[in-house]
């Protein structure tokens, strides 16, 4: 402590020479830093002749590179004398100032930075270039970046010097990190060791690590979407089955596998015994199991084509929302059941929150695929929404919030709140009252749930989402009602027709008129339609209100 004042004079040029000194020091094999006493032997920089003329330049002047410009070639010079010599090359008149007869007074220069020790005239530096470099290095921006190690320098020559040795000398930490600078290495080591100690103290939960691993695989979901786009464009439904294999195989290379056998809830074979193929098709199931890693919110019904309609509908329901868009898959499945076809529907439950011990089939995206095979222009929508979903990790609180925001579940002030949030966080969560019909549907649709569970056996996948007697409070119930209605009355047909119009408004109107069940269906898809529009820019308030009004007036 007492040595504070005595050592302070070292600051300036010592600092300047740091860059070049560094390389020498790096070559020293010693691990201990050089003892501070070493500095005392060095000459004290910035101790000018007291007679010298002290020059204080503003930063601007100091850093001006080309004050003297050649009028012929625009080359700039820092000193007039140099310009004059240059002019000679152009055969222009030139004149060098003659050395004055009397002894030139030695000049010293101040650093313009007031907090700098070299701002003090007693510590001025005798070299203009030196003070310039000092100022750049110590108080300037590091404009020059090494391409190899990204280290930045304020002075170009420093970068040049560095690039000669960059990469030739490396420090490697036990953790595998490489450093080209010894001091960075040592700083890192201090933390690395400390962290290693900390790590050994903190227990972590393996399961949750799994969750985060899964999360890292977002891109898979996106590739899925491309596959599904192909799927939907296929005219042949047999082909859709093979495409599905393709889809599955896209899932296989995923670097993780379930750490434990999935809970029974992951599969929903269905109570009506219509899924004979289920237990036989192990391979498919397994691969599906893996593909659940895409994200737990995805539902993959079997795509083995059976009827004319099924290739498109099955493809459409690839990512359907279990709560309502299941209409389509349920439709095809129901048909196939009636015809005795082997139709497996496999519901990939949400495995992400394995830590929570629960698995719920909940998907966020439904109508997207529908629109996908109806109108190609909606592919972009699909991809967009996939991306926004891929933000979701497992079913964490964040994921729940985002899901709620996307479903517009929160109603009332809530829906506007979400929108407010969406605008401040993620652009993809910005739908104006996105599907705000859903929440209400859940609220008043619960009653019909039980009856329909018994009657509509082909709705198994949806049922299972509400399995164990627990209804999904706001979400599922409305979907069930919609599902039942649409199925029994053939609402899907009108739904598909409406979709083919490619216009949400028309669609909503036409299918609204047809039947009660598809009212809800319409409403639900309106929600997604809202997303479509909001993404492409603006949805008419009329639609929104229409859907919501319907829902609100729906008798409980």
């Amino acid at each position, binding site marked *: *402590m*007492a040595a*504070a004042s005595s050592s302070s004079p070292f600051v*300036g040029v010592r600092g300047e020479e740091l860059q070049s*000194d560094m390389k020498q020091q790096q070559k020293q094999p010693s691990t201990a*830093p050089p003892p501070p006493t*070493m*500095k005392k032997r060095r000459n004290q920089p910035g101790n000018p002749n007291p007679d010298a003329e002290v020059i204080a330049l*503003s930063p*601007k002047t100091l850093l001006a590179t080309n004050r003297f410009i050649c009028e012929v070639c625009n080359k700039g010079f820092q000193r007039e004398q140099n310009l004059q010599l240059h002019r000679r090359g152009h055969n222009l008149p030139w004149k060098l100032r003659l050395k004055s007869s009397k002894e030139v007074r030695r000049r010293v220069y101040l650093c313009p*930075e007031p*907090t700098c*020790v070299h701002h003090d005239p007693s510590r001025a530096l005798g070299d203009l270039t030196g003070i310039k470099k000092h100022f750049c290095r110590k108080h300037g921006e590091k404009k020059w970046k090494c391409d190899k190690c990204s*280290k930045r320098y304020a002075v170009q020559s420093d970068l040049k010097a560095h690039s000669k040795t960059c990469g030739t000398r490396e420090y490697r930490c036990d953790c595998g990190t490489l450093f080209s600078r010894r001091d960075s290495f040592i*700083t*890192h080591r201090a*933390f*690395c060791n400390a*962290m290693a100690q*900390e*790590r050994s103290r903190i*227990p*972590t*939960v393996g399961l*949750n690590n799994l969750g985060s*691993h899964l999360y890292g695989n977002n891109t898979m979901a996106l590739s899925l979407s491309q596959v599904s786009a192909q799927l939907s464009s296929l005219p042949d439904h047999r082909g859709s089955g093979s495409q599905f294999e393709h889809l599955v195989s896209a899932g296989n290379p995923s670097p993780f596998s379930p750490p434990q056998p999935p809970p029974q809830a992951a599969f929903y074979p269905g109570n009506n015994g219509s899924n004979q193929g289920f237990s036989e098709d192990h391979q498919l199931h397994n691969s599906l199991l893996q593909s659940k890693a895409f994200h737990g919110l995805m539902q993959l019904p079997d795509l083995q084509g059976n009827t004319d309609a099924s290739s498109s509908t099955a493809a459409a329901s690839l990512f359907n929302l279990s709560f309502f868009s299941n209409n389509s898959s349920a439709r095809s499945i129901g048909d196939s059941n009636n015809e005795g076809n082997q139709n497996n529907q496999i519901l990939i439950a949400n495995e992400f*929150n394995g830590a*929570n011990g*629960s698995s*719920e089939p909940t998907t966020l995206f439904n109508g997207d695929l529908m629109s996908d095979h109806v109108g190609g222009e909606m592919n972009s929508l699909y991809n967009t929404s996939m991306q926004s979903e891929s933000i979701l990790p497992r*079913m*964490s*609180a*964040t994921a*729940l919030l985002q899901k*709620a925001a996307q479903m517009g*579940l*929160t*109603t*009332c*002030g*809530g829906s*506007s*709140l*979400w929108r*407010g*949030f969406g605008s401040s966080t993620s652009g993809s969560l910005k739908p*104006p009252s996105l599907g705000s019909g859903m929440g*209400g549907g859940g*609220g*008043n649709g619960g009653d019909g749930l039980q009856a329909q569970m018994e009657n509509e056996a082909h709705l198994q996948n949806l049922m299972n989402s509400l399995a*164990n007697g*627990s209804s999904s*409070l*706001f979400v599922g119930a409305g979907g069930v009602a919609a599902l039942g209605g649409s199925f029994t009355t053939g609402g899907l047909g009108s739904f598909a027709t409406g979709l083919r119009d490619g216009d949400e408004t028309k669609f909503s109107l036409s299918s609204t008129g047809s039947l009660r069940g598809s009212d809800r269906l319409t409403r639900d898809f309106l929600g997604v339609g809202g997303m479509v529009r909001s993404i492409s820019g603006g949805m008419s308030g009329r639609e929104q*209100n229409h859907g919501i*009004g319907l*829902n*609100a007036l729906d008798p*409980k």
Partner: protein
Amino acid sequence: MAPLMANVVQDEGSSSVTSSPLKTFSLMSLSPPSLSPYSPWLRELKSDERGLCLIHLLLNCANHVAAGSLDRANAFLEQIALLAAPDGDAMQRIASHFTEALARRALRLWPGLYHALDSTRAVVLPLAEAAAARRHFLDLCPFLRLSYIVSNQAIMEAMEGERVVHVVDLNASDPTQWISLLQGLRARPEGPPHLKITGVHEHKELLNHMAARLSDEAERLDIPFQFNAVVSRLDNLDVESLRVKTGEALAISTVLQLHSLLASNDGAGDPRQAQRTAPVSQLTLGDYLEKDHAANGYSPSTESALSSPFAPASSPARMESFLASLWGLSPKIMVVTEQESNHNAPALNERFVEALFYYAALFDCLDSTVPRQSVERLRVEKMLLGEEIKNIIACEGWERKERHEKLERWAQRMDMAGFGPLPLSYYGLLQARRLLQSFGCEGYKVKEENGCFLLCWQDRPLFSIAAWRCKRYD
């Protein structure tokens, strides 16, 4: 009481059919019969069903609290109580902290009750426990350590070649950061400087502990060291007491503290005023929808326009003068770590939603790395995060200290105060990423943005680290 409440809500549900379909819709969805405590299925709700349910209830409850309709808010709180649990899954935990905050907020309409309940609060929150919670947070999440390592790297770089270094810690509650700085300085190629650390904190015990701890470490590392303890709250800190001398190279560090200076008497300080502004919140949903079309991001909403002007670059006088006095010390570097969230909106609704998302992410962090039953985790959630939530939701005016703001606002503010950005270095980023790697949980990320670092959980930025220096030559 419960059946009565149910009737109230139902009545309102039916009466509002005529007024607004949207409103009806919301109220129908929450009709209490479906949430009766006697429904067995309620307890069998799966985690994310329950989570969605809680979110729904919380937001509606917040709306009612903001609107001052306590009867309805109470009905919601009852329902939430059935689902929330401070030791359940992340959403249940969040819900319990937010309901507590909402309840406090609601109670403010009865100042007598509120203050009576609050009268022993200072005793309930002993200093040691709060410090322990912070310490646990340091251990359980990498954020504070990231802040320390990045700040220290920036300070080290700024102090390269300096022989006399003075570091001012504006929230000196934890010696961890400075121990690592001591180690880093020890390893400097040019040798360690003479180091003086000034710690500002309102509790002397913490400062004493810190002084002892740091002096030991400096002794061990053989670094000339001096600790200067300033017992003061940040908002009445006299910069003279920092004893900054000429010839010292000054660095200022503040971790999650500077926002408290944003507290000001913004018109809602006492409950009576809060009550007066309450009718403003009683907008119909239609109003909400319209308002929200107009008000995205920072554009002032109806409410904010009425309650207090919230001009983008303005700071409360106290913050301005404080930054000005810091600028007067001409630090070579000032490193600021702050919560990356906008918890300073004047309208409760905005704050509530923003806080819900923010703390959901934080609770997720804990949920992903710490077992449910961990006492440390419970302490962090209650004593640290829970207190912040309560402050954000329940307090107004001078009492509302947790006024977190996003980096862009800080940048404006610092710029106004004469500080220019000092880009954090690549090595800082490298070290931060290393640290995360050694932490071993992949959800955490460090992003570089305009020379500042954002500490993220998954893709959501939660904390920002930025370095500043005095602008002199512009």
